[in-house]
């Protein structure tokens, strides 16, 4: 891949992507839903017995694991196939710009929209939580950072599909497929455990076997994200509604960050390979 890139061209594309998508009414609507849900969760947790940022964050996780992939996929799925279909990509590519620069610009611009949405979604609730109980500001910031990484995984994957597939509708199909994978892969691994003779009841007492931990962490970005968030708050053990989760020692935040980075970078290189030889 050419090291020789024009940063001004990348920035120009990134700025355009940001300005166009930050005003996308679907993204706006999802961000508002995001803000409302996080506020509701934070208040609900604040009134109950369980106080403290960590517990609230566990509630917020359920929102972000659902909403963040949706926002990311909505931003990414048509970013190349859609623009190629309307013809504007051909105008862009007729300018003195390389394909790698267009692709990087899209990643950066869309990544910025995604980050803005997440920071707004969690930031407002965060200020309320932290003023009530200034327990773990650093942990909460790590949590927001991890949420952005989770979003970038799905953004990267959906841009990748968009670069490979010719038409907007097919890349929409791929985006929907990606979302389902995000939602069910954890359960699929559970099902494999059960089908191969594992007892689901044991999971509560003895915990998950190593192979399950590994495959969850590698194949299911959502489970990895939730685990990384626990570790970010310095929690290895957690008991929720009679279910005990104990993260094995060999799983560290550092390793999880490497997996995150792989999930974000690998699709980028695949996208570049296909985008470079694509007819526009």
């Amino acid at each position: 891949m050419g090291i020789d890139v024009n940063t001004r061209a990348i920035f120009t594309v990134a700025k355009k992507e940001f300005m166009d998508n930050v005003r996308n009414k679907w993204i706006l609507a999802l961000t508002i839903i995001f803000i409302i849900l996080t506020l509701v969760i934070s208040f609900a947790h604040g009134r109950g017995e369980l106080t403290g940022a960590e517990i609230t964050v566990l509630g917020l996780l359920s929102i972000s694991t659902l909403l963040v992939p949706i926002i990311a996929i909505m931003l990414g799925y048509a970013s190349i196939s859609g623009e190629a279909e309307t013809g504007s990509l051909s105008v862009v590519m007729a300018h003195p710009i390389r394909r790698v620069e267009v692709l990087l610009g899209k990643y950066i611009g869309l990544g910025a929209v995604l980050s803005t949405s997440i920071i707004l979604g969690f930031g407002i609730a965060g200020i309320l939580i932290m003023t009530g109980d200034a327990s773990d500001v650093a942990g909460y910031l790590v949590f927001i950072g991890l949420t952005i990484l989770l979003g970038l995984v799905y953004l990267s994957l959906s841009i990748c599909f968009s670069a490979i597939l010719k038409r907007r509708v097919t890349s929409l199909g791929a985006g929907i497929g990606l979302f389902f994978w995000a939602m069910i892969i954890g359960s699929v691994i559970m099902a494999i455990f059960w089908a191969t003779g594992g007892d689901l009841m044991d999971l509560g007492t003895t915990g998950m076997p190593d192979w399950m931990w590994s495959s969850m962490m590698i194949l299911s970005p959502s489970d990895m994200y939730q685990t990384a968030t626990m570790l970010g708050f310095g929690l290895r053990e957690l008991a929720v509604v009679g279910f005990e989760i104990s993260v094995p020692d060999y799983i560290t935040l550092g390793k999880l960050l490497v997996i995150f980075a792989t999930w974000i970078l690998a699709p980028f290189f695949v996208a570049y390979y296909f985008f470079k030889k694509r007819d526009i």
Partner: protein
Amino acid sequence: MAEAEFIIRTEGLNKRFKTVQAVKDLSLNVRKGDIYGFLGPNGAGKTTTIKMILDLINPDSGDVYIKGILTRENGVGVRQGIGYMPERTQFYRNLTALQTMEFFAELKGVDKAECDELLNKMGLEKWKDKKVGTFSKGMVQLMGIGQSLLGSPELLILDEPTSGLDPRWARILKDTMLEVNSNGTTVFFSSHLLSEVQELCNRVAILNKGQLIIEDTVEKVSEGQMQKPKLILKISGDAGAAAQVIRKGGFSDVDFHGNVVSVHCDSHERTKVLNLLAQANIVVDDFRTQEVSLEDAFMKYIGDERSVGGELNGD
């Protein structure tokens, strides 16, 4: 002619889409300073060729040189001096006209002051702060033309530039093409409107089923089919019978339709045609003549087979 005087040169371009041979062994030569018309029926491969020239579509084989530089090897450098407007485009729904223009100006490294100027020129000054998503088809087309003119490019490549424009804006666009050409810009455009091509271009190429039929000056192309001017007669009786009479009189290129007969003949033969009809007691209500047109030549070149698209494989 020296190599560098050809601003676009393609050599043996081929492109196949699955079962369609869209472009076949195509070699074109566009000279600096030309207004070059790129003609062909629907599906002839014009858009595909234009996109290969711009390095947007990868040819299966063949080379494109712009100003003597192989585009495959230095696409970025070569595209610096090109303005392009595609066949159809939608731009970015949530950006205003001005923001869209500024985006392209930034990509080209052109002074943003030009954006306002060009929006005015394209009649969009009142709309410059409105989102492009709300524009009509023709307004989007005008935006497309506006952005292609940014930075006064050396080479302007327009894919059916007047389609979708009302006659007034089509006129303004044609004048703009002549104006930029007189300032040194080479204009390469595809079109279905042969009258406008005849009016604007000094050179044309005709493409059919992906293959080049002819590339020459407008005059040579028009005459190339040994065309004679057309005499069109309105008959009060049976046009078929009239056509028969004219054919018997030694004219082969005769056609009739309703009560109209047309015959291709030189101007000195016109009285002979009229005399033939008078002798047969056929009353001519009205007649007019039509000079050799690119349109007639075009029809002859592409034949009257009614099928569109490139050559289908195994067909």
